[in-house]
């Protein structure tokens, strides 16, 4: 039985796919984290976000997170899907779904996965504003 589903895609992410993958008869809980493109940052109006990646390495790093989450927490399955390309306000750049027998492990694994993804996976976003653009986190 496959316990992890990782995806990096320029297509629209599908919440149902993540749910369907992790859903299991042995599980009493499913935690889902959905990232969303916010309309402002530091009081500046965001028009769109452009995500790029180092694809082969990003997939390896996402797989590592999924594998580590399975070792570290009492969970059954985990899906980590990330989008690349141009995303508009309200679009979904990331979905993490985790199933477990009891809810605590699912919540903890979900938080671990998104926190680690934001630190280690080689994906970058450029924020576009009405009058310019900036690479997030890149300037001192």
């Amino acid at each position, binding site marked *: 039985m496959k316990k992890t589903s990782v995806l990096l895609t320029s297509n629209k992410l599908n919440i149902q796919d993540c749910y369907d993958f992790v859903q299991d008869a042995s599980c009493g809980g499913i935690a889902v984290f959905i990232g969303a493109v916010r309309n402002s940052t530091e009081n500046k109006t965001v028009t769109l976000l452009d995500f*790029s*990646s180092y694809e082969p390495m990003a997939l390896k790093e996402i797989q590592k997170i999924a594998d580590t989450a399975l070792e570290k927490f009492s969970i059954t399955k985990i899906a980590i899907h990330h989008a690349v390309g141009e995303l508009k306000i309200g679009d979904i*750049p*990331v979905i993490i779904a985790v199933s477990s027998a009891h809810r605590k492990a699912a919540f903890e694994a979900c938080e671990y996965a998104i926190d680690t993804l934001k630190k*280690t996976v*080689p994906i*970058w976003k450029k924020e576009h504003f009405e009058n310019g653009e900036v690479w997030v*986190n*890149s300037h001192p």
Partner: protein
Amino acid sequence: MEIQVLFFGITADLVGKNSIILLVEKKTTIKQLKYDLTKEYSSLKNINDFAIAVNEDYAEDNLMLKKGDIVAIIPPVSGG
């Protein structure tokens, strides 16, 4: 010996390229490579520190490069 260097995110914009072939001495370490790259491309000093990956894995400063390695310059990531 030749290695390939890939630039991502803001570093691709700063350097103006996505990829270069670089000639380095045998036994060049990651630390030395970082020094050489910032010397060659001084605009790389304008950003927060960057990490280096060799053949798709994060590399420590003391790792020695081998012929044909694919090195990636990883500026601070911002996925999610």
